[in-house]
């Protein structure tokens, strides 16, 4: 209303405290990861075994691949709750293709293309119709999995070719699985895109203020559409991996993965309100979740205790920056 700057404390750069919080957050994540690793090694004689550590990575690689794209989407201020349903639909389509006699390359292509298509469908609904992404993807979550259930019912598809098993069960070198290698390569690519390209800067700009970004010449809808496609693509890739790992398809495949993916992203320090976050944090969060669940699993701790642990971690992550900012503000007041 008035153009006179208020005497109250209004920071001229909003991103400063946020970004510094993120930096310290990543440092904290590293500390947590190291601590959990050390505790696991002490607590179980079986933990420090190359094959155990290799098996551990299977607990999170598929979800973590999706988390990379989801991080960008959440930074841009959108969300996709349909990722697990996309896995189910892509897996069902691959299963149908197997029944029709498709070979390994065709299966991989079908999984990826179906994922991409589902992502594009989400993106179109959000950007063309201007619907909130949380509403759209709650809808498509039921839609995609519903189609899988209609096709499969209580049946399952199996009989995937043996060459297809490599993606979810194979190793590229010694104990380094294909899934882990793919995740690490994808993490580097996503890190580069988000933190080293103008595309990445635009994603942050949209998340901080979509209107300002639009007026600055950023094609907001187009970038959001691309991000939905990327999330679909990664879900398609994850579908190939998990279908290969399980060697079969049921419509209930990957049930509940969407929440675990989003947990990873938020635990990695990505602001659920958009505008802040880093790929490094998400990668660390993926490893932490894998370490926690596998470490507790080695001690045969019931799964519900693991859920409590992850839940507490998540609440701390979300509450900490807010509490910290409030404390700062009170000091200035």
């Amino acid at each position, binding site marked *: 209303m008035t153009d006179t700057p208020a005497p109250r404390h209004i920071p001229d750069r909003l991103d400063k405290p946020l970004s510094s919080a993120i930096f310290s957050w990543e440092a*904290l994540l590293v*500390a*947590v990861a190291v*601590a*959990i690793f050390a*505790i696991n090694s*002490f*607590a*179980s*004689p*079986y*933990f420090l*075994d190359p*094959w*155990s550590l290799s*098996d*551990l990575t*299977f*607990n999170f690689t598929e979800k973590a691949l999706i988390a990379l794209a989801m991080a960008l989407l959440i930074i841009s201020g959108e969300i996709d709750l349909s990722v697990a349903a996309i896995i189910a639909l892509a897996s069902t389509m691959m299963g149908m293709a197997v029944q029709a006699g498709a070979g390994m390359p065709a299966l991989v292509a079908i999984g990826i293309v179906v994922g991409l298509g589902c992502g594009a469908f989400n993106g179109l609904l959000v950007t063309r119709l201007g619907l909130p992404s949380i509403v759209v993807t709650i809808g498509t979550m039921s839609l995609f999995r519903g189609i899988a*259930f209609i096709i499969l*019912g*209580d049946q*399952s598809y*199996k009989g995937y070719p043996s060459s297809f*098993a490599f993606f*979810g*069960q194979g190793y590229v070198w010694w104990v380094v699985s294909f899934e882990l290698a793919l995740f690490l390569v994808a993490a580097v690519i996503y890190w580069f895109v988000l933190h080293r390209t103008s595309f990445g800067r635009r994603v942050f700009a949209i998340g901080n203020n979509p209107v300002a970004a639009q007026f600055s010449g950023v094609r907001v809808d187009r970038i959001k559409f691309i991000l939905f496609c990327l999330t679909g693509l990664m879900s398609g890739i994850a579908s190939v991996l*998990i279908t290969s*790992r*399980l*060697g*079969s398809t*049921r*419509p*209930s*495949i*990957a*049930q*509940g*993965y969407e929440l675990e993916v989003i947990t990873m992203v938020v635990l990695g320090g990505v602001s659920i309100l958009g505008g802040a976050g880093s790929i490094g944090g998400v990668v660390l969060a993926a490893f932490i979740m894998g370490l926690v*669940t*596998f470490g507790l*699993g*080695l*001690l*045969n*701790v*019931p*799964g*519900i205790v*693991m*859920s409590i*642990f992850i839940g*507490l*971690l998540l609440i*701390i992550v979300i509450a*900490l920056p807010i509490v910290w900012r409030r404390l700062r503000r009170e000091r200035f007041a």
Partner: protein
Amino acid sequence: MSILRKLMVMAALSAAMFVNAAYADNVKIALVVKSLGNGFFDAANKGAEEAAKELGDVDIIYTGPTKATAEAQIEVVNSLIAQKVDAIAISANDADALVPALKKAMDRGITVISWDSGVAPEGRQLHLNPSDTGLIGETIIKLAADYLPEGGEVAILSASSTATNQNAWIDAAKKVLPEKFPKIKLVATVYGDDDSAKSTDEAKGLLKSYPNLKAIIAPTTVGVVAAAQVVTDEGLIGKVNVTGLALPSEFKKFIDNGASQAVALWNPIDLGYSAVYLAHDLAVKKEEAKPGATLSIGRVGKVTLDDTNSAAMAPPFQFDKTNIEKFSKIY
């Protein structure tokens, strides 16, 4: 400060676990269930512990995921492989999806058997059925038919649509219907996913959609309680008979209040007991699991493997007003 706090929490947690981690050189047999917090599987664990005591040199690891999904169960299997257990006895959430993980376990020298809910033959050395699929299918229909001399409409409230055993029983039930129970009309099969809330909704839906329904058959311990509660709440006792497979301790009040005339179940204690004996036979006594082989299951007797290396333990056991009191105290 928050790092410190987290470290303290984790240190406390792990300290508590050191106690569990200290196992002697005993044979480690893992009893893997579909999900924890299920009375049926807790009873099976009782039997497993009983068998361990008899065998002397066995430690039981009773474990399973919180969510009854194949993916979560694979994570459990992976952690058991890493712990180098001697045998895994699993009740599977999915007959096919567990196969690669269990194959890996066998590749690393672990004895793998399935019990209750089976795994495809290539993923295990043998499978112990609690009973015979055909007999169970017939029993669940008979439980309803015995109290419907005039016949009528019945519906099935099952567990999840992917549950291996429930699907097999329902198929068997459908097979015996036309010849043995011509007056019984199966009008619907719905799935409550072994979730109390969902099973309750599905049971209510059945009563709305089929006003002439005479019986709800729930071949799952979760579904049968939900259905009986719905029938009780809606004042339909005497009109709709709930039956199926139920744990006596959980279900006693519905036999008492008349919502159900009779239910059946095999003895889960015997099932856990027999599974541990079979795992011990293969892992320690090095007996071979092949078609036609006869294996000992302690006080329960002996089982003979069929062409797919499967064996049936015993026929289902019926509970009604005359004996529910006694069995509700056991499990």
